[in-house]
């Protein structure tokens, strides 16, 4: 419901102003001080990152020999992690943009959670690609000697573009929130007050500022949809454009996009639950949100199941050559445990159980979102590694260690550090800025902050 056609009587204005103040209090309260648990959490993430940093130092010093990567399994958990991060970054577009163009308004309190997950995901997606390189400085060659025919160049272009768009889509709706922080959080350290002042861009809620901001958001929302689809399609092409059993598929683009929407939605559900519980935001992130997100999760699980059916059943029916070997290793061989867990726990079980209304409570929806995220990561591992170990030309006359892949502690530490890095970005952001968009949530309740700002100025 919009207030555009509602007459703002003094009573309504007073009621709305009171509601706005109440909301500002609720949302700024978590920014006041960091609890002991919060500090421990940050310390924990920093320690994981330090261990990862040491492992990366070893990798830089001795080369990729410290990893389990060899000639055949040349992509391991780094690239699985990259695909996972790209996947979760897609949710920013889904929540902010796709839902924005529908008539739904319920999503508004969770847009910022989705957008910060997207930004954190895409930042680390870019970094993990560099980490995967034995000679990271050679990344420059992609720019110095570009080859436009190469999907790797497309991927770099699309990731950079998507990161810029996601940051802008996070930043623009945040402007009124930063201005509130600038005006209210005056007891914060000097650097923090300077940061609020700098990033608020002199926001005073003038009519022109609101107009420019809303128009810019609309423009970003339009371009982010094809961008989001292309970032994951191009990532899938890195695989599909090589001639390998399991990757040589025309289904790969939509298959990746569907999986990304699912993984991202599950991440947002977990984020919603954590912020709702620890920031006491029950009034804003309600059971209705979990109900809707639960429904969305079921829908996306079913869509992804459909793409999985196409991806695995069609080659299974034919069982030709190297594909047969790969499918056997997935269905009943070395990777069967991971494969069936990913299909059942990461997709089918949540879809079957969350379809019931009674199951869509915050706790239960989150409970099922966790395996969806965990097995989304495992699924990426299954897309990358077993295929590399089952090439068209048989592996022969090579050292035994080349025939298998198992990540070393350095790889595990670096991947853990990257996951901690994503969580650290989200945590620090939520410690500094409002995690719920105040003006968008108020709009959801029928209160136009823009109108209130206008009235306030007229009064002055």
């Amino acid at each position: 419901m919009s207030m555009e056609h509602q007459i703002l009587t003094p009573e309504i204005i007073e009621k709305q102003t009171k509601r706005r103040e109440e909301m500002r209090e609720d949302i700024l309260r978590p920014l006041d001080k960091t609890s002991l648990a919060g500090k421990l959490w940050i310390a924990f993430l920093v320690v994981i990152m330090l261990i990862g940093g040491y492992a990366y130092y070893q990798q830089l010093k001795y080369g990729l020999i410290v990893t389990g990567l060899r000639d055949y399994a040349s992509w391991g958990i780094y690239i699985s992690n990259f695909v996972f991060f790209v996947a979760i970054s897609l949710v920013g577009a889904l929540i902010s943009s796709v839902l924005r163009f529908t008539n739904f308004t319920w999503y508004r309190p969770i847009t910022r959670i989705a957008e910060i997950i997207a930004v954190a995901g895409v930042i680390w997606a870019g970094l993990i690609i560099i980490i995967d390189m034995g000679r990271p400085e050679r990344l420059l060659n992609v720019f110095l000697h570009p080859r436009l025919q190469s999907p790797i160049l497309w991927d770099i272009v699309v990731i950079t573009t998507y990161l810029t768009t996601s940051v802008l889509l996070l930043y623009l709706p945040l402007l009124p929130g930063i201005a509130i922080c600038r005006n209210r959080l005056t007891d914060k350290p000097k650097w923090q007050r300077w940061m609020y002042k700098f990033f608020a861009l002199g926001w005073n809620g003038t009519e022109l500022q609101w107009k420019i901001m809303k128009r810019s958001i609309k423009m970003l929302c339009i371009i982010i949809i094809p961008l989001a689809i292309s970032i994951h399609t191009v990532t899938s092409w890195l695989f599909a454009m090589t001639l390998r059993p399991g990757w040589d598929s025309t289904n790969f683009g939509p298959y990746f996009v569907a999986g990304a929407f699912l993984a991202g939605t599950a991440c947002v559900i977990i984020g919603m639950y954590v912020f709702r519980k620890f920031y006491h935001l029950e009034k804003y992130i309600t059971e209705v949100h979990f109900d809707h997100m639960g429904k969305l999760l079921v829908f996306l699980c079913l869509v992804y199941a459909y793409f999985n059916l196409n991806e695995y059943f069609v080659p299974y029916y034919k069982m030709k050559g190297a594909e047969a070997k790969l499918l056997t290793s997935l269905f009943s061989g070395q990777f069967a445990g991971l494969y069936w867990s990913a299909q059942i726990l990461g997709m089918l079980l949540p879809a079957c159980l969350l379809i019931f209304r009674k199951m869509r409570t915050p706790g239960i929806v989150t409970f099922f979102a966790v395996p969806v995220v965990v097995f989304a990561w495992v699924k990426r591992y299954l897309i990358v590694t077993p295929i590399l170990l089952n090439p068209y030309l048989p592996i022969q006359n090579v050292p035994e260690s080349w025939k298998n892949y198992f990540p070393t502690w350095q790889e595990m530490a670096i991947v853990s550090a990257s996951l901690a890095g994503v969580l650290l970005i989200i945590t620090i952001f939520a410690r500094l800025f409002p995690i719920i968009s105040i003006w968008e949530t108020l709009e959801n309740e029928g209160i136009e902050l823009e109108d209130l700002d206008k009235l306030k100025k007229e009064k002055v």
Partner: protein
Amino acid sequence: MIDIFQNNWLKKLFIAIIVSVPLGLIAQEEEIEYGPASMKLTLVVEDSIKTCKVLITDADKPVEGVQVRFFVKRFFSKLPLIANGKSVSTNETGVASVEFPDNLPGDENGIVVVTAAVEDDDNYGSFEATDSTKWGAMVSYESQEEEWGERSLSGTGDKVPLYLVMIAGVIIIIVWGTLFYVIYSLVKIKKAG
């Protein structure tokens, strides 16, 4: 027992069989001596068809039914001239032949090295003959360079197909144009503050 044959002719036939069968068996048991076979590979053009022809003889007599495989030497290994490495059997004149394809590249002078091989034959074991001729398709580096110089998806970075440059260019200009406009909007927001 021989008296049971009332007919004299039958009696004679019986005796002849009794005597000849063991003699025949003894004769069969005698080992046939196979001399070393000789193989002659000729690369001839018959009715404008390049043909690799092999003649296998044993003491100047043609040997029939020997399985022969034909190969062409490539950079790393031998390429079978018949698909899946199948063999050809020599006929009653001791000849086995196979057609040589027109499009197989040779070395820089167009020379190809053909090998005819008999492998593990029951009577003659393994042996082979090799010959070379100028049958290979000439690979012109100029034409190759010309081909590589064309704009294609498999070309080098500076040989991008123009349609790809245009499509990518238009997309990048539209998207980044929008992004720069939005970034410029931030400046306008600051000024409006």
